C-alpha cells in the first residue's frame, strides 16, 4: 500500500501535468486560428503534449532525489514536473523567453534544469546514453544516486536504446529505463514497428530484469519503480520497465490524427489514470474537498507559471551568438608557450 501522503503528491503531480498540457494547448493554438500556422501564436515551434502519460512520470519520480538524473524524450513536460523542474522557468522556456531555463535557446524539446538533474532532447532514444553516463559517474564517485531514462514505445528499436541496455548491464550501472507505451509512434501502431507486445522483454537479451506495468495506474507504476530504483540505488544494476500510458491528444499540436481509429481515441479518453488515482485517494480516506483543493492549487500554480512566463522579455537577438561554449574559445590559456626546443626549428615549438 502506498502511503496517503505519497498518493497526494502523485495526484498533485498528475493534475498539474494534465492541466499544464491543457493550458499549453490553448495558448499554443491561440493565434493559429482559423488556419493552423506553426509560425504564429505565442508558443514557437512544435509542441508534443503528454496528456495521458502522467501516471508513469509520477510513479517513477516519487522515488527520485534531486541528485538523481532524469533524461526525457520529445514529450517531456509531465516528467519535468514530476522531477521538480522549476515550473516558471520551464514555462518561460517554452514561450521562448529570456528568463527561460535555456534563455529561450532550447525550447520545449530541450529543457535543462541542472538543479534537479533533468534534461530532455528531441531525437528518439537520444537520452539513454547520457543517462547511462550519469549512472557511470555515480558509480565512479561511489555515490548512491541513480539515473532514469524515459522513452516512448516507438523508441525500443533504436540503436541508442539497445546499446544503452547493454552498456548499463555490463557495467552494472544504477540506471532505470522506462518505456512509456502509449500505443502510437506518431501514426505508427506498436505492432507495425516491433513484434514484441511487451518491450520489457528486450531486457532478457542483456541479462537485465524487465517488467511491464500493464495498466495505466500510478500506484502500480509506483510499486514497480520502487523495486527498480531501489535495485539501482543499492548497486544491483539496471532495470527495464515498460508502463502502459495513453495518448489523449495528437502526436504534436496540429496532428490531424486521421490515421487513428475513433474507438482508439475514445478508449484513451476513457481509461483515465487521474480518476483512477482519485478513487485511491478516496479509498485512503481523503475527502473530496481535499482532493478538489489539491487540484485547484495545482491549477493555480500552472496558471501563475504561464502568467509569469508570458510576462517575461523576449531574448535579445544578439544573444544568439553566445553560449556555444562556456569557456573562452582558446581553452584555459591564451598565452603562447615559450619553450626553447633543441635541434631543428621545424620540430614543434611556437611562434
Amino acid at each position, binding site marked *: 500500500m502506498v502511503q496517503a501522503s505519497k498518493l497526494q503528491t502523485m495526484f498533485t503531480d498528475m493534475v498539474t501535468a494534465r492541466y499544464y498540457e491543457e493550458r499549453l494547448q490553448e495558448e499554443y493554438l491561440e493565434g493559429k486560428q482559423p488556419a493552423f500556422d506553426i*509560425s504564429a501564436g505565442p508558443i514557437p515551434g512544435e509542441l508534443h503534449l503528454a496528456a495521458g502519460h502522467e501516471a508513469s512520470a509520477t510513479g517513477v519520480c516519487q522515488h527520485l532525489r534531486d541528485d538523481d538524473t532524469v533524461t526525457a524524450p520529445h514529450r517531456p513536460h509531465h516528467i519535468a514536473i514530476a522531477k521538480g523542474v522549476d515550473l516558471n522557468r520551464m514555462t518561460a522556456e517554452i514561450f521562448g523567453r529570456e528568463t527561460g531555463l535555456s534563455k529561450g535557446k532550447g525550447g520545449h524539446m530541450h529543457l535543462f534544469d541542472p538543479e534537479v538533474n533533468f534534461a530532455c532532447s528531441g531525437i528518439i532514444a537520444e537520452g539513454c546514453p547520457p543517462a547511462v553516463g550519469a549512472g557511470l559517474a555515480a558509480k565512479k564517485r561511489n555515490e548512491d544516486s541513480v539515473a532514469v531514462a524515459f522513452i516512448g514505445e516507438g523508441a525500443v528499436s533504436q540503436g541508442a536504446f539497445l546499446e544503452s541496455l547493454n552498456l548499463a548491464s555490463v557495467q552494472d550501472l544504477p540506471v532505470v529505463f522506462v518505456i512509456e507505451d502509449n500505443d502510437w509512434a506518431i501514426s505508427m501502431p506498436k505492432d507495425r514497428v516491433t513484434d514484441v507486445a511487451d518491450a520489457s522483454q528486450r531486457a532478457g537479451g542483456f541479462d537485465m530484469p524487465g517488467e511491464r506495468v500493464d495498466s495505466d495506474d500510478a500506484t502500480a507504476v509506483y510499486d514497480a519503480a520502487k523495486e527498480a530504483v531501489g535495485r539501482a540505488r543499492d548497486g544491483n544494476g539496471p532495470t527495464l520497465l515498460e508502463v502502459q500510458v495513453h495518448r489523449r491528444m495528437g502526436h504534436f499540436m496540429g496532428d490531424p490524427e486521421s490515421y487513428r481509429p475513433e474507438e482508439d481515441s475514445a478508449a484513451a479518453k476513457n481509461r483515465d489514470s487521474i480518476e483512477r488515482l482519485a478513487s485511491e485517494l478516496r479509498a485512503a480516506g481523503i475527502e473530496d474537498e481535499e482532493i478538489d483543493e489539491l487540484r485547484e492549487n495545482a491549477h493555480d500554480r500552472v496558471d501563475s507559471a504561464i502568467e509569469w512566463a508570458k510576462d517575461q522579455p523576449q531574448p535579445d537577438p544578439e544573444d544568439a551568438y553566445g553560449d556555444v561554449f562556456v569557456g573562452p574559445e582558446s581553452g584555459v590559456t591564451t598565452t603562447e608557450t615559450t619553450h626553447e626546443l633543441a635541434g631543428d626549428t621545424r620540430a614543434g615549438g611556437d611562434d
Partner: protein
Amino acid sequence: MAQQDSAQAIDRELTMSRAMVEAIADEMRADEEVFYMGEDVADYGGIFDSTQGLLEEFGHDRIMDVPISETAYIGAAVGAAQAGMRPIAELMFVDFFGVGMDQIYNQMAKNTYMSGASVNVPMVLTTAVGGTYNDAAQHSQTLYGTFAHLPGMKVVVPSTAYDAKGLMHNAIRDDDPVVYMFHKRLMGIGWMPAPDGPKTPVPEEEYTIPFGSADVKREGEDVTVVTLGLHVHRAIEAAEDLAEDGIDAEVVDLRTLVPLDTETILESVAKTGRLVVVDEDYRSYGVTSEIVARVAEEDLASLEAVSRLAVPDVPIPYARPLENEVIPATEDIKDAVRSIGS
C-alpha cells in the same frame, strides 16, 4: 529562364510537395521495383507531405512504414538497391542523420567505389531540411555541407515545384545514390505556409532536370548571388528590392551541390565581378566556403568583391528573435550585396 519554343505556356500550378509526389507516383507506376520506406510515410502521408496520397494507390507494401531505426532501414535500402531494386528511403529530418550516418556514407555512398563499380546503389535518400519555424537545434538544420563534403552521393536541393519534379525523376532513375533534400518551408504544407515562389506551373508529363546544372533564376548585371533552397526566394525578393535602388542582381540557384555547376557561377561572376553566397547551413567549412573557393581558384582575376551569408556557426536557437537573427533574411541579403559595393 523558360524557353519560348513550346506550344503553349504551362499554367497548372503545384506546390513543391505535390510536384515531388507526382514524380514518385509516376516512377512507381512505371517500375515495380520502386518503393518508399520511412517513418509515418504510409497512413500519415509523410510529416511534410512527401508521400501524401501514395498509400491509397500503392498500398502498405510499397509505401512502407518502418520502425524508428534509421540505421536498419536506410541500410536495408542499400541492400535492396544492390539487389537491383530502386528504394526511396526517407530520413524524416536531416538533423537525425547522426543515427544512421554510417549506412549512408560508408555503404550507400562508398559501395560503388569500393567495389570498383561491380556493385551500384540506385537509391534516393529523401530528407527534410530547414528552419524558420522555431523547431530549434535538433530539427532546423539544412546540413547541405555535411552531405556535399563526403564523396559518393549526389546532393539535390530543389527550390521550386518545377525543379522538384524534374530533379526527382532524375533521382529515381539514376543508377547512383542521390540525397534529395527538400526544404520544409517550400513544400506548401497547410500548416506551414510557403513564401511566394516555390509553387509554380508544372507540366503533367514526365521530364528530367540534369544534375550539375545551376539555374539562373534572375538575370542581373551588377552582382551574383549564389544560393539554394529557401534562400533562392529570399534572394529573388532581395534582388527585386535592390533593383529599385538600381542594383541589378543575378540569382543563381545551384539546384545540386554534387555535382556542382561551377561553370554557371564563373560565367556570372565574370560578368558581375561581385559574389555573394547565401546559405542556410553553417557558415564555416560549408557551401559558402566552397563556392567562394572555386571562384577564387578558377577565376581570381574577375573577382572584385565577395561576401558570405550563412548561419554564423551556432546551433539553431529556438525563440523567434534568436532564430531570425541567425537565419539569413531578405534584409541580410540586401545588406550583404550593398556591403560589397556595386
